[in-house]
């Protein structure tokens, strides 16, 4: 059995996956209810983010290995909202120095693989990254690109688990399962507070359903009286003992970004 299923890792992951197995014992209606509630929460969370138009921010990543040695990455981020499709994101690298000015453009999509380009200043050329990969390590850190940005709702299926206290708030705990079989994860467990649906914690489980990483988020601030953005994201890899702290600063909403900047042509002019 292992063999046939192994060719389809997700199917295998789900079959091996204990909570699902338990869920199979619960009435189908209850399961459907939990799935619907999970999806509703995801949709509601997305609704809260709609309409920001665009924002810019700065990111500093501090990578730490098991020995405690650290290394820094610094980048600027520009995100533009696209109606009826995934957001467009632009990452401009400032540190380390030898990749300074390199720019990474992503056109997110709801229903197909994202488009990705990289501008290499040393080559003065834009290169398309044809791999559909979102799950690999981002710049050697513990973050995959898919971990850094709020994912499209359509990329997962959901299941509501429970509500429970988290700090002074109450959190709703939802499990989500990636649809893409190239994802590095079999599932994620997500903690969001019931009031604003801000993300506080994510536990990532790898394809054999082992607890791989935990993301904790804090330092939320509200922008435009509406949009909550975190300032600290801490990702710990439980298997390797490595960790990465991602700090966001200088959020600016509804700036004068233009769509042109998020094109291949615009990519060449980034600085």
């Amino acid at each position, binding site marked *: 059995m*292992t*063999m046939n299923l*192994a*060719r389809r*890792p997700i199917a*295998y992951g789900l079959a*091996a996956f204990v909570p699902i197995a338990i869920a199979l014992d619960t009435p189908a209606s209850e399961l459907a209810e939990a799935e619907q509630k999970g999806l509703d929460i995801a949709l509601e969370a997305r609704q809260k983010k709609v309409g920001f138009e665009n924002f810019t921010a700065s990111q500093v990543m501090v*990578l*730490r*290995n*098991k*020995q405690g*040695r*650290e*290394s820094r990455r610094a980048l600027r981020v520009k995100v533009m909202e696209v109606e009826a499709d995934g957001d467009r994101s632009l990452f401009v*690298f400032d540190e*380390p*120095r*030898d*990749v300074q000015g*390199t720019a*990474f453009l992503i056109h997110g999509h709801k229903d197909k693989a994202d488009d*990705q380009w*990289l501008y*290499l*200043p*040393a*080559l003065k050329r834009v*290169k*398309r*990254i*044809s*791999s559909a*990969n979102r*799950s*690999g*390590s*981002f*710049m*050697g850190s513990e973050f*995959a*690109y898919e971990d850094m940005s709020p994912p499209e709702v359509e990329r997962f299926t959901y299941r509501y688990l429970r509500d429970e206290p988290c700090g002074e708030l109450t959190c709703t705990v939802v499990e989500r399962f990636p649809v893409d079989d*190239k*994802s*590095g994860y079999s599932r994620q467990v997500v903690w969001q507070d019931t009031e604003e649906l801000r993300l506080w914690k994510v536990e990532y489980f790898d*394809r*054999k359903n*082992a607890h791989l990483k935990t993301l904790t988020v804090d330092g939320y601030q509200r922008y435009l009286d509406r949009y909550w953005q975190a300032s600290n994201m801490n990702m710990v890899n439980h*298997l*390797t*003992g*490595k960790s990465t702290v991602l700090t966001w600063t200088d959020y600016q909403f509804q700036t004068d970004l233009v769509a042109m900047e998020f094109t291949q042509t615009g990519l060449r002019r980034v600085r």
Partner: protein
Amino acid sequence: MADAGPVALDRYTSVVLDRRWPVVAVAGLAMLALTAGAVFIGVTNDHRVLFDEHNPQLLAYEALEETYTESDTALIAVAPGASVFTRETLSLMESLTEAAWQTPHSIRVDSLTNYNHSESVEDDLAVGPLVDGAEALSDDALARVEQIAMDAPEIAGRLVSADGQVAALAITFALPDDADAAVIEITEHLNEVLDEYRSEHPEVGFHVTGDVPMNRAFADATRDDMEKLTPFAFIVIVLVTIAVLRSALATVAVVAVLMFTINTTLGFAGWVGTVFNPVNAGVPLIVLTIAVADSIHIVSGTMAGLGKGLAKRDAILESMRENAYPVFLTSVTTAIAFLTLNASEAPPFRVLGNLVAFGVLCAFVYSMTLLPALLAILPLRPGRGGGKWVFLDRLASFVIARRTTLIWVMSLVTVGLIAGISQLEFTDNWTKYFDDRYEFRRDTDFIVENLTGLESWEYSLDSGEEGGITDPQYLRDVEAFAQWLRAQGEVSHVQAFPDIMKRLNKNMHGDDPSYYRIPEDGALAAQYLLIYELSLPFGSDLNNRIDIAKSATRLTAMARGGLTAREQRDFDARAQAYLEANAPDLVTPATGFTITFAHLSQRNIESMLQATILAMGGISVILLLVLRSWRLGVISLIPNYLPAAMSFGVWGYLVGQVGLAGSVMTAIAFGIVVDDTTHFLTKYRRARNEGSSPPDAIRATFQATGRALWTTTAILVAGFLVFASSGFEVSWTLGVLVAITLSLALVADFLLLPPLLMALDRRKT
């Protein structure tokens, strides 16, 4: 001993005999109380227990792992018996790669099929698995896959054999703190998966090796040795005891002492939290073998007394008078010798030394309490085997008549054998730690022969600055080092970071082969690397080859099979000399699993040598005090020290290589050999003190101790030969070496010591 000694001893023995039931009861309670601890005994399969926590090579290795990624791995080789570049085999590899991701604790799977090939497609960088959906590949596509694979230095000779007949995948694990359970879990899982594959593809060979399977073999060997060898040794010893004592009841007494001793020792081991592994799994067996000697001396003395017509009580009293002191002495000297194992670099030997020392003293205590009480309780009858042993008289006559010739002949033999030490090389090779009865060894041999060597030198090459790994000078230096390594006969494969940069440079120039070289511009190289890293999927990142600061890369040189530890160390020295001369900023010693082992016996020998000499000195002083004669004391050194040296010589001629076992053999054998000499010389001195000439004293000593020496040596040699049937290299080498040493010691005691005594002991009486 003062003259009050025998009187006090008689009084003590009488008390034991009068209260024999309470003595048995107290001994039984004490034994049970200690035995209860046996439940706390642990067994580990982590090969790292072989190393002291301060071992510099181990520390360097752990630092390497912390800088990059854990390097606990399992390598699965797939051998279809034909080219692997077929739709069937490649799709088998694809499915096996996916299945491997399900292995517990795995963090990475590298295989022939999921190798991330990069190429230029319409001027963009395309990165993807080498094989994706093999079943649908055309013949042209298969040929292309083969060409790419055989041209890729990262995988050719590592994940696919040079002849294209064997493909492989490597699973990397991050083991949790309780690595023992994880190793069992992983290997059980792999066996299960592979069994399924084997039954579906009976024509394909599947072979597994790596350090995680090796740890499993460690666990299996420990269990095998403890569960199979110890009972087997027990049976052998019981049989030999029956043959020697020719009395079932007397054997019962001896067996009772043995069981009490083993239970108490293992119980004690549990109470102090001992964790067993293959190296010290032999503790029960060694204790058993050594402990039996004490009781044999006392029981055979008693039987001899009965044979002479003494009443049982008197026979026991006399045997205790005769033997208590030598048994005490030999127990102390044996314990001291085993305690010197505390100086060993390998912690399991310290445990072995301490537990055997405890067991030996424990056997002494039971021989002084439980044994006489049991002898008093059991309805013993005189054995049938009493009387003189004519052979011993003849031997004595021969030795006395030919003493001069014997000195010359024995000296020549001794020198000749000891010269064999020059043929001896110390080496520890983890791929050869287990013999053919373990699948691990058979698989490992297959992989070494058909795919890749498994031992490696790992170099963490530090550029000295953040982001320095894309500096062209650094890349050129590392590239030159990799080329130099590839040109060395000892190396079968080199995995070096510049290979990736050269490939990317080519990809970025439309796959133009003339750009398969280091990029000229550091920033460009860094940006190539960035785009490549952004393209790599989950589990395929470069974090196992590059440190987080991009300041250092890891270079792995795989060794050809069959190198000795010295060749491995010498190679590393040459590699460092190369770096010293050509890239002095990059100089670093090799680290890794292999090099840690390559230094193990060397370090262990150095640490053991001093301690063994110290123990030999201490024991010799004890002998001097006991014998109260400088002359005898000095003469005793010869039969004590020479046998170990001679057996190393024999080993040098016959085998040539010795590992960890060799470093502790002297201490272990010495502690046992001393016993024979002690018995021999104490009896000889007593005969001399009673007025005999040296030849007469020799004859009397042969008669008094000859039989006990033959029988105890027979038991010890039998016990250690059982030990030698272990499938774990350290154990069987130790067993054989000790058995040879004990046999040679017996020869020396009968053929060399007496002529020496007659030649040198000219003291008038």
